[in-house]
Each structure stands twice: as structure tokens, then as C-alpha cells.
């Protein structure tokens, strides 16, 4: 299996969260054995560089490979263009917290980047200076050509982060169950139809799992969970209920103006992050 991430990028702004963000990313880069690019929107200055370096000191000791990128301009453009230049394959963005401290959401700049980025994106809801272990990974198992890559990346990451549980969630849309429930008879038909769908989905996911090398499956409990619900939204809700530490999802096909008005798939997750979310491209 290929190592999915070689170059990790993070946009740095000198905010109160900077230390936590840097620690989290640096740790991840070491875990994934990847090079870290720190992209700052603004003038290059020795002062800034020095400040960032002090934060990174403990990780430099652990042989962290890193590079600074300074560029002036519109934050969205800068981050997108530099990640293309530097061949970044994983971009890390921080989420914001709602006033009531319960919900997290992705801010407008990060949201634009998430939509337009050509590489994978990791949205962090609560970066911390301390290392918090990742136990439970939830990944989508949609019927989609990209799912295979997503699931194998999930196994790779779980292995690197030492997660012990992977749950593959198969979301089955209401429309796929062709039977509408009106009375006992149609309920019975719908239940049978769902059972057939569930088995079909399950065997598809099992085939994907069987293609993954054994070494990545060692010491990991694999579970599949079919859910009949709205695509992209119910998986977030599930991750919250199942208290997942990381949610890994396919990238959306393409988002237009209408998708934002009538949110679906990934857009739901962006307004309401259940946990850390990794979007694989």
C-alpha cells in the first residue's frame, strides 16, 4: 500500500491557537513521516520565523522535516496556490467553536479552501498541546469510486496513529429503498428491501477490506455499520454518538452554488463538525 501523505501543509496565523495547532500538526507529521510546510499569509520576517521555530523546537529534536512558505495576498488563494506549488497532499485547517461551546463549525475562509483544495483536508476541532490518543476512527463506505482509496487511507492512518477501532459506515439513502412505508404490508416489503440492500452494501465493503494488506489490519477491530439516512449527515451524527476521534470521508464530487443553499454531503459536516474530520482527495 502506498503512503498517502508525503507533504503536510498548514496555514499559520499568529492567533492564540497557534501553539496547539503547531503541536498537533508537527506531531502528525512525525507520525506519518511526512514533511511539514508552514504557510503564512504575509511578509517574510526573521522575527516570525524565529517565533515559529521556538514552538517547533521539541519536534525538531525528533527530526521533523519542515519548511516555511511566506506569501502575501488573499488567504484562500495563497494557501491554495502554495499547496499546489509544494505538492502538498494534506492540508490542515482549524475549526471554530460556536458560542455555546458545544458545536464546532468551519469558518468561511477554511470552508472556501476545503471546497477548492485539490488535496486532502484535515479539519481539527480541538487541537491541543498535549498528545491525545486517537482510538476510534469512523470512515464512510459509500458506493463511490473514491471510497476504496478513502478506506485504505483510513487503515493507513489508523495504523500510524495507533487507533484500535475502525467503523465503516455505509449510508444508504432513503431513495434507494424503493418501497414507501404506508401500512403493515409495505413495511414488511420495505424491511426486506432494506435487508437486501444492507447485505449488498456489506459485501461490497467487505471486498474492499479484504484487499487491504493484513499488516494494516492487525490489532484493529473492524466493524461495519449500515445506516439508513441522509448521505453525509448521518455519518457525522453517528461519529458524534459513537464518540469517534476521527471521521474520514470522501471528497464531494463538485459543489455548486445550489449545494450550499441546499446543503448535502460534506456541506452538512462543515457547518457542524462532530469531531476531527479528514476529507480524502
Amino acid at each position, binding site marked *: 500500500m502506498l503512503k498517502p501523505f508525503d507533504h503536510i501543509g498548514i496555514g499559520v496565523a499568529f492567533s492564540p491557537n497557534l501553539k496547539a495547532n503547531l503541536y498537533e500538526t508537527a506531531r502528525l507529521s512525525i507520525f506519518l513521516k511526512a514533511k511539514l510546510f508552514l504557510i503564512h499569509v504575509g511578509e517574510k520576517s526573521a522575527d516570525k520565523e524565529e517565533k515559529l521555530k521556538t514552538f517547533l523546537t521539541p519536534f525538531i529534536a525528533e527530526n521533523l522535516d519542515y519548511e516555511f512558505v511566506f506569501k502575501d495576498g488573499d488567504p484562500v488563494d495563497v494557501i491554495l496556490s502554495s499547496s499546489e506549488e509544494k505538492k502538498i497532499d494534506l492540508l490542515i485547517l482549524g475549526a471554530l467553536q460556536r458560542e455555546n461551546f458545544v458545536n464546532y463549525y468551519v469558518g468561511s475562509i477554511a470552508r472556501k479552501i476545503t471546497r477548492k483544495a485539490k488535496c486532502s483536508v484535515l479539519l481539527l476541532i480541538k487541537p491541543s498541546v498535549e498528545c*491525545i490518543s486517537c482510538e476510534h476512527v469512523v470512515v464512510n463506505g459509500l458506493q463511490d469510486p473514491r471510497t476504496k482509496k478513502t478506506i485504505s487511507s483510513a487503515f493507513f492512518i489508523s495504523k500510524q496513529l495507533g487507533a484500535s477501532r475502525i467503523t465503516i459506515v455505509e449510508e444508504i439513502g432513503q431513495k434507494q429503498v424503493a418501497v414507501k412505508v404506508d401500512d403493515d404490508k409495505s413495511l*414488511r416489503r*420495505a424491511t426486506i428491501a432494506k435487508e437486501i440492500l444492507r447485505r449488498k452494501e456489506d459485501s461490497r465493503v467487505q471486498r474492499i477490506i479484504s484487499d487491504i494488506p493484513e499488516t494494516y489490519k492487525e490489532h484493529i477491530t473492524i466493524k461495519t*455499520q449500515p445506516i439508513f*439516512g*441522509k448521505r453525509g449527515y448521518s455519518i457525522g*451524527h*453517528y461519529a458524534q*454518538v459513537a464518540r469517534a476521534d476521527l471521521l474520514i470521508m470522501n471528497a464531494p464530487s463538485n459543489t455548486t452554488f445550489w449545494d450550499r443553499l441546499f446543503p448535502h454531503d460534506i456541506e452538512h459536516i462543515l457547518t457542524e463538525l462532530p469531531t476531527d474530520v479528514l476529507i480524502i482527495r
Partner: protein
Amino acid sequence: MSPKKNNIKQFFSDLPKNIFSGFVVSLIALPLGLGLAMASDAPAISGVITAIIGGVLVSIIGGSYVTITGPGNGLVGVLLVAITALGINDAYAAIICSGALLIVLGFLRLGKLADFFPSSAIQGMLAAIGLIILGKQFHIMLAHKINRPETMDYLLAIPYTINDAIHYRSSGLIYAASIGVLSFMIMVFYPKIRNKYLQLIPAPMWIVILSIGFSYYFEFVAHEANPIDANYMLSGIPDINQIISQLPSISFSKIGQSSFWSSVLALTLIASIESLLSIKAVDKLDPEKRRSNVNKDLKALGLATVGSGFLGGLNVVTVIARSSVNVNNGASNRSANFFHALFLIIFIGLFSTQLTRIPLPALMAILVFTGYKLASPDIVKKIFSIGREQLVIFFVTLIVTLKVGLITGIASGVFVTFIIHVFINKSFSLFARNLLKPNVLMYREDESAGNYYVSVKHFCSFLNFYKLKQKLDAIAEDNEVIVDFSLCEFVDHTVMENLHNYQELFAKRGGNFEVVGLDMHGTDSKHPFALRRVLPIPSLLTNLTNRQTTIEELAKDFSLSYVAAKEKNTTFLQDFVFFKTKQINHIYNKLSNETGSLGVFDIEFSEGEFIAKEVVRTTMLHIQLEEEICTFTLDREGFLERIYAFAGYKDIPIQNHSDFSKRFYLLGENSTAIKNFFTDDLVHFFESNPYYHVESNGCSLLVFGKERLASVKEIKALYDFGKRLKEVILD
């Protein structure tokens, strides 16, 4: 599923029962049909026509099983307005159009329409309809016909009518009024008399029989003219030939006017709400526990309404009172509805002349009673006990309906409910931001017997209840369902009431429906249906949730002690490895035996600190042992394995029990002591029982299942497991 029954044979063997209950229902339908039609200012016979057409058509093409269809009391108010504004011939056209709209609703699968209205607003609307009926008919009951422009004026005139009635001088009026009062007494006291011969005939029919008998007495025995004033006798009952030959002329001339269409809309709205609510209620009564196809029924009702309108009848709706009589008399399928219509045809065919012997006050007494039932002070009391805010919704709907009209009334009820919800939560954005989100997650938990787990986020009120309902309706009622509201900030009364209905339905059909996660939500009243929202600082809980009261009952049954309040002293849990990295906040809902050695409790603990803090609520069992044992943890999935590995524990195989070793991770420091401790009996116990995580700290055991709050049924299982485990260990 049971094998397919021989349907035709079953149908014929059930036929006598259905004919009988159809007969009993027709006895009520006849006087009610006449009365409701007259109350709507339509010709008396139109009510009976409605029942006949409805009974025949809906019984053939409908989608429900034991419902009865006919003229509904909810529609009286709207029909009255329509007929006054448009005239009877154009009103028929409006009825036909509303029938067509109902068919459209059926095809658009809008059977869920009734779910969008807050229950207190519906109650308020029904009460207003009750007052409209009562206000108008009360005067006729006391033989004092009056004409007032507004419904309120009719109500305000009631004391004057009573005063006038006491001072009547004309004997015709005195007789008429006393027949009215007597009939009203029969309606009131009939349910209180328990006599099986008397109960054979329903109260309205007693009134009809007695008043016809009264008139015959004067004619044949006393040889006098009927003493009741001729103005107060039922008139204009055509015989069956006249009905067929003299179809009303239907006029579509006002179709361009807005008043026509507002009547059509009101008729459709009320007809569908009344029918849907009745179908829902009757489904709960169905002895065979079938689920009605509401959309199919709506189409059938619409078609019947169109037919009824063309033949000079009114809107056909499903009616709750007659349907419950139908069920009580042993009806088992739609044929009862058909026979009720058939008997009505026979009555009209044979006795149409006798019907003119019924005095109007007697008929109106039946309606006054129905109106009173809809608006009785009991309803107000019940609503008040749920919460003050519900009373506001109720009265706003009631008064606006009386003052302005039904559609404005129900709309203002919906509006006020929403405003109150926003006010209670002090947040508009909670609703605005989350209204369109699919906030309900349902899946099957695979580990146990496959129960359904439903989690609801954000808020759940009448605005988005249909989403939850859609999920719940996709579950057969003999399953186990757990609905979890711990992620939900606000749950309203409409939802609580509907969930209660589901609970009853599941209980009746052999399933189990439990609601968890509401223990931290605050309420203002003690009623189980009161609306609940998450309190920032949970105060002392005054209103126990349904789950808590059931646990309380459980405690009584097993003679355990139960404390719902939070307990901060949790030192007895500190030694467990599981809590090493976790901060215990408190335990609550504690159930324990006399010695306190066995206890089940809900626990709230948090993982991580500061911003990474995550609060978890779950249910655990604690067993205090008298003797020292070794420390160990027993786990199946192995996902906790790593944490314990930190603590220096390793997996220990038990000899001769390879299956056990394969299925469980047994971890501990002192492997020889653990091997000795796990005797054959203990291993067999674990192998043959449902899986739980078990952990020992040397002198006590901690047992728990899932990382969420347990349902009462799961609490019972957990407690039983612990009790037996303790016995096995002590042996």
C-alpha cells in the same frame, strides 16, 4: 410472519360480528347525521347522505380497518360559514372541490399533514368548534331560536335563553324545552349507568326512540295532538324516492370568488386534520393491531366527499366517536362501515316518516353534549397541568378561531407556539439554523438482539417531528427501540405526547419503546408530556422523567432503594483502571439493594481536559464483595486493551477454555491468581451470558455494557447479571 390466512373464509366468519357493529353504529349515526347537518344549516337529510356515501365508498377503497366515516363535528363550524357565505348550492360545489383537494393530498402522500400542528393548538381549535356547536344549538335545545351575527354572541346569549326558558308560558315551548333538557340528561347520565340491556342501544338512539314513542303515545293512547310546538319538530325529511329523484342543483357560479376558495381550503384542512387524528386514534384501538394506510384513506375520503357533494351530502371524514363504538361492538374489518351505511339506507327507506316525529330540542341536546365534550373544562385543566405556556397556545387558538375563523385560528396557534418556543429557549437561531437539518439518526445496534437506536440532535418540536416520525414508522412495532435525546436541546409537548403514543403502541404489539437522555432536561410542570429543554445548570430535578419513574417502580418491585438525585461522592469508583484517565462528575439515578453491596447507577464522567473535554453518560453496575479477589479486567472487543496495557496488564489465557480465551480479553497483573480465580463455573457463566465489560479492583466489581445510558429493560438485565455473577463468585 404468520402464514397467509384464508382471507375469504375469515371474512365470512367475521361477517355476523361486523353486521352487528355496523347496526349499532348506524343507530348513533342516524341522529348525529341529522343533527350535525342541521347544526351546519344544511338540510337534515344531507348528514345521513354523507354517512351513506362515506360508508359505502370508504369501506370499499379505503386504507384503514375499523374506522367509521360520515359527517364530522369538526366540520360544523366551517360548513356553517361556507353555507352562510355561499348559499347551500354553492357550498355543495365547495364540498366537491375540497374532496378533489383531499384526493390530491392523498396522492402527494400528505398523510403526515396533521403532524405539523402543535397538539395544544389542535386542542384549542377543537374546543372552539365545540363552542361553536354548543353556542348555536343550546338555544334550540331550550326551544328558543335566535339569530346572531357572531359565534361569541350566541355564547353570550346563553344566560338570557335560560332565563327565558324558566319563564315560558306557552305549553308547546315548555314541552319542547323539557324534552331538550331530558335528552341532555340522558346523554350525561347514560355512560354512568352500567346495565347491559340499557347499554345495548346507544344513548342518541334512546333519545330518538323515546321521543318517537312520546309522539305515538299522544297520537294513539291519549288521542291528542303532539303537545310540542310544531316549529320545534324535525321537518323536511324526504323519503328515499325523493332523495334519488331530487338531486340538488349544484352551482359553481361563485368559483371565481375568494370566499369560495377560502371555504374550500378550510373544509379541506379541517376534514384532513379530523380524519388523520381519528385514524391515528382508532389504530390504537384496533384489536388486530393493524397499521392504517392513511394516504389511501385520504384518497378514499376525498372521492367519497366528491360523491357526497354531488348527491347533496356534506364532507366525509373519519369520525372517532362512532369508530370507537364500532370497535367496542366487535368490528374487525371495513365491512362494518359498509353495513352502517346499509342500515342507514334501510332506516331512511322504511322510517323516513317516523323521523319527523323527533323534536328538534332532543336532537340538539345530542349536539350540545358533543360540543361540551370538545370544550369541557377537563381539557383546560389537563392542558394547564402540562404547562402554562400550553394554556396560552390553547386560548389564543380558541379565541382567534371563534373571533376570526378556523384557518386564522390554527395558523395563530402555530405561530404562538413557535414564538413561545423561541422565548423559552431564548434563541431563534437554534430553530433557524437546524430546522432543515436531518436531525435524526437511526441504526440497528448489532451487538445485542438488534434493537434500534434513535438519536435526535438540536431540537425536536412540532416543526420537525415528522422527521423523527418517519424513522419511527419504518420500525415494525414488535421491535426494541431506544430514543436518545441527550444531544437534543429542546423537546416540545407535541413530541412528548406523540412519543407516549408510540410507547403505548409498541407495548401493545409486543415491542418495547424507551426514551432516554431526558433526565438532564428541565421542565416547568410535573406532567409527563411537559416540554423539556437542557438547563445550563441542572437544578434539583423536580419532574422525574418517564424513565426515572419506571426505575422507581422497578425499585419497588425488587425492593431496592432508588435515589434520583446526583451524588458527588464517588470515591468507591476511583480505584478502577477504567477511571484512571477519566474524571467522574457525579452519579445519579442510583438503584441499590439493602446492604448497598449491589448498585446500578447512571454516571457522568469526562475524558480529557479543558477544550478537549468530552462528557459521557452511561449506566454501570457496582458489586461490593466481602472478600478480597485478584484485580483483572474482562473485555470482549479488545479496544480498551491498549489502555490496560499501559497499566502493565497482559492477556491471560485460561486453560481448557480456548473458546472463552478467544472471545474475551482477560487482563491482569497476577496471572496465577487470576487463573485460579476463573473456575469452570465462572467461565461458563461468562460464556453463556450476554457480554459486558467486567472489571475488578480487588474488592469490588464494575460491570457495564454500552457507552450510553441504558434503557430500563437493559438496567433490569444488568442488575440481574450482577446478582447472578455475585452468586457465582461467592460459591
